[in-house]
């Protein structure tokens, strides 16, 4: 079997496991509806969304020009599907609790048409994205999104690429497994991580939360384990001395927990090479922690860095 076919089978099998990791019928149904939603957008069969999304759908952060409702959602997908005719969302993970579903994936496409004023570069690009949906009576009623627009802009050559190794060339970290916890324990773990490490700056608490070999596919250049977490928290907290972070939504399962965050502060110190601007910024993020034996072993983050950079008046 060719490697590509094997990879394809593996992530599809993983998706089945992810759907049936839930035992509550509502959550299985909601996950399956989001799978069908993703497939409809991948196939560019946007009329299939009529069965999956309420007409008065609300987009929490509409893209420029996107109004409220299902028809405007379809229009927004066309704005991506037209410049990237082969656009594909490879669905890596789906997590559900109650009426909320988080979907995380990798998006690939070839930039063949004008995209928000950027002329076609004919480059094959790849970025990540996480979607949070609320469902009501088996249809989607509201959506939030975090996509790594910054990486997309860098690949198109619109925003400079930071120095250092190409993250795609770094081999993945170990796949650590262990006993699952409970939803309640994972929710408490996420809350403690945000409250202690990010809000209070008690960086050593990361030692208790993260496995020594934990890694993040979203930031593979960081050191493994708690040290990588401390590095990035220190970088943001020194750049924004009044840094704050809130958990707006949380979606927990026995072996993972996702959350949607809002964060902000005043830019008074160097941020990864960007000198202090004195400007106040506020931006969103979706994070997912995978938990084994009570410790975080893998984590994913999609941060709205583009909005942050625009607010600081740099890049974008």
């Amino acid at each position: 079997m060719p490697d590509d076919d094997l990879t394809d089978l593996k992530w599809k099998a993983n998706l089945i496991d992810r759907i049936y990791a839930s035992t509550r019928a509502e959550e299985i149904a909601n996950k399956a509806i989001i799978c069908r939603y993703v497939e409809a957008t991948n196939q560019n069969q946007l009329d299939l969304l009529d069965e999956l999304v309420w007409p008065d759908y609300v987009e929490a952060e509409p893209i420029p020009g996107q109004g409220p409702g299902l028809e405007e959602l379809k229009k927004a997908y066309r704005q991506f599907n037209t410049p990237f005719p082969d656009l594909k969302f490879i669905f890596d993970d789906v997590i559900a609790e109650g009426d909320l579903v988080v979907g995380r994936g990798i998006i690939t496409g070839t930039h063949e048409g004008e995209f928000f004023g950027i002329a076609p570069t004919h480059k094959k690009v790849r970025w990540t994205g996480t979607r949070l949906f609320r469902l009501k009576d088996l249809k989607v009623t509201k959506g939030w999104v975090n996509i790594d627009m910054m990486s997309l802009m860098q690949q198109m050559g619109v925003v400079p690429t930071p120095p250092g190794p190409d993250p795609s060339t770094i081999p993945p970290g170990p796949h650590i497994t262990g006993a699952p916890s409970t939803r309640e324990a994972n929710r408490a773990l996420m809350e403690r991580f945000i409250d202690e490490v990010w809000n209070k700056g008690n960086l050593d608490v990361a030692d208790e939360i993260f496995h020594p070999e934990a890694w993040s596919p979203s930031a593979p250049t960081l050191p493994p384990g708690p040290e990588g977490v401390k590095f990035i928290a220190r970088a943001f907290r020194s750049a924004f001395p009044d840094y704050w972070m809130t958990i707006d939504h949380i979606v927990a399962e026995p072996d993972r927990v996702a959350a949607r965050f809002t964060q902000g502060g005043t830019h008074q110190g160097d941020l990864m090479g960007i000198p202090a601007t004195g400007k106040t910024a506020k931006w969103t993020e979706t994070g997912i922690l995978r938990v084994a034996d009570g410790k975080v072993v893998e984590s994913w983050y999609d941060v709205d860095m583009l909005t942050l950079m625009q607010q600081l008046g740099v890049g974008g």
Partner: protein
Amino acid sequence: MSSEIEAGKATYQRMVDEVVNQGNFDVVEELFDPAYVDHSAPPGAPGGLDGVKAVFGMFRTAFPDVKFEIMDMVGEDDIVATLVHGEGTNTGPFMGIPASNLPAKWRSVGFFRIKDGKIVEHWGIPDMLGILIQIGVIPPPPDVKSARPHDQE
């Protein structure tokens, strides 16, 4: 061929014809040992004979026109191995997933241990990936987007 194997094959044939295809759960006690264990039961299914009714009840809810056809049966000692073709229209919820109203065809392989002519243990692998692709939950393979498994036969 031992008489146990022969009895086991006949029992399995009745299971397919009467329980799966006709939905007659009254014969479950005749065909399954009271100590029946399903090693491949879906998560949350009850144990014992209630599990048989739950699993095939679920299939008949999801695919009310479901038809199983036995393509092959092989027996040795007290084990009967089966290859089955199933098909139906997904007009009801399937393991929690809302109906798609799409047709599906699939294969499953099962190993059944027979005791006194009744089924006492089961290990099986249904083509869950194939079913979920056809009811629109999992993306189809890149090259054969419209083709359903077995259409080529």
